[in-house]
């Protein structure tokens, strides 16, 4: 019964940076065992949302509940215990640059378990095998391509067999092959490890390809949510513009400015 409850429940979330409201009453449910994509134009606070779910930022109001626990009411110890069950893939990979690929993946295992070295080795090699980089174990992070770094980071995020993984813009800046590999990996890992995945992205095609459910946020609000097919054929002009990448629509092509003629004639 408890499995039917969403893994992450966000209610009436408000968060501001200075004067600017990033979220203004956002409600999101992340179902268990599914891939949920959170999409929206750049600068809408998608990464901020992941940091709020991970307890790295404190909301102005509203609640974020992960697996039945209110993230922002937890003490440091309980929050860290919860984070051990969450993996996060950062946009940059966020690998520790002074240790090898193997040591990066082994890092959380060494930190949180007292497992013997032989077992750590097996675990790390299995995680690296899952992302196809067992052969790169001795490389240093600076020797990896962007796509490889993200795959290593993914292996590290999975190291402690978390209940969910949050992906922060996993497809940004990837070549078509790396992009294809990542798309396949995210879906395959989600299904094979019975994970819950949250993919934050503005790469509509790739995200829609693997997501079971999509939330589109803009200007601090959830604009629309639904299954990928429904979203692609949305009646909402804004969603249609975003999902289909149209240059003009409710989001204007031009940044607000006085009329061109007036601007050209009135210049100094």
């Amino acid at each position, binding site marked *: 019964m408890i499995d039917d409850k969403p893994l992450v429940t966000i209610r009436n979330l408000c968060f501001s940076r200075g004067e600017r409201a990033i979220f203004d009453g956002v409600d999101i449910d992340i179902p268990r065992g599914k891939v949920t994509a959170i999409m929206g134009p750049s600068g809408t606070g998608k990464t901020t949302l992941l940091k709020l779910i991970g307890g*790295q930022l404190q909301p102005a109001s509203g609640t974020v509940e992960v697996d039945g626990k209110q993230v922002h009411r937890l003490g440091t110890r309980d929050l860290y215990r919860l984070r*051990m069950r969450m*993996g*996060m893939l*950062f946009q940059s990979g*966020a690998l*520790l*640059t002074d240790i090898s690929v193997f040591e990066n993946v082994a890092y*959380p295992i060494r*930190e949180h378990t007292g497992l013997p070295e032989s077992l750590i080795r097996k675990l790390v090699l299995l995680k690296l095998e899952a992302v196809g980089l067992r052969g790169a174990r001795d490389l240093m992070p600076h020797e990896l391509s962007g796509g490889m770094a993200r795959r290593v980071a993914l292996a590290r995020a999975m190291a402690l067999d978390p209940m969910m993984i949050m992906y922060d813009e996993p497809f940004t800046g990837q070549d078509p092959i790396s992009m294809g590999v990542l798309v396949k990996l995210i879906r395959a890992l989600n299904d094979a490890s019975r994970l819950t995945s949250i993919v934050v992205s503005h790469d509509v095609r790739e995200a829609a390809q693997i997501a079971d459910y999509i939330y589109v946020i803009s200007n601090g609000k959830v604009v629309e949510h639904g299954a990928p097919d429904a979203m692609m054929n949305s009646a909402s002009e804004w969603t249609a513009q975003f999902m289909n990448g149209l240059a003009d629509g409710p989001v204007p092509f031009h940044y607000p400015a006085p009329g061109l003629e007036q601007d050209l004639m009135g210049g100094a």
Partner: protein
Amino acid sequence: MEHDASANLGLQVLEQLARLGRIGIGGLEQLGRAHLLLLHMLAGISALATRPRLLLSQLFSVGVLSVLIVAISGTFVGMVLGLQGYYILSQFGAEQTLGVMVAASLVRELGPVVTALLFAGRAVSALTAEIGLMKATEQLSGLEMMAVNPVKRILTPRFLAGFISMPLLAAMFSALGVMGGYFVGVGLLGVDDGAFWSQMQSKIDLNEDVLNGVIKSLVFGFVCTWIALFQGYSAVPTSEGVSRATTRTVVHSSFAVLGLDFILTALMFGE
């Protein structure tokens, strides 16, 4: 009209006062954050007992890698002291006290102060850049999300390494400085070998001179490393932000060392 002008002036004055207030509050806030960070770093020291390797690797990069610059600088400063001291002392026929002059200058002042300034330029500025870049590349956030406390795991070993390394480097600076002074005074300028050492032995006091110098270097090591780690940890996570933070570290550390040196000297050697 006149009323408007005076109202405008009043507004401008208020605006300036508000600006001053904002700067003051911002400064206090930074100070508060720096102290909180210090408390968190100190709280993490006990955890290092189970992971001595973290400290050892930092002792290597903060301390051992600074040995060469400190050793070379110490030797040359000692040689210059020997040369200048000889020229002045010989005018009064007191060149036999050269050893005292060289040693006292080094252990009381130049050892701790110059080493701290070199330390600020060579080691702690690198700490700021390293921590700032770790922040900019989300490595610190990554650790947090792996349920690892970055202050305890990354900052505390560096803080302790800076605190331990600084007095050792200052001692090395002073020792090599004395050897440099000896080389110039005794080796090149003909000061009596026995007088050089015996005068030094009788006039340099363990508590008054050496211990006070060690206390100074401990204080400088503590403050410089603290400044560096705070600047790195609170750097704006962009290349410009890290560059500014690194500059601030060197400037603030240098001022702190020179200011604290005056205060400590007044407290230690004042009547």
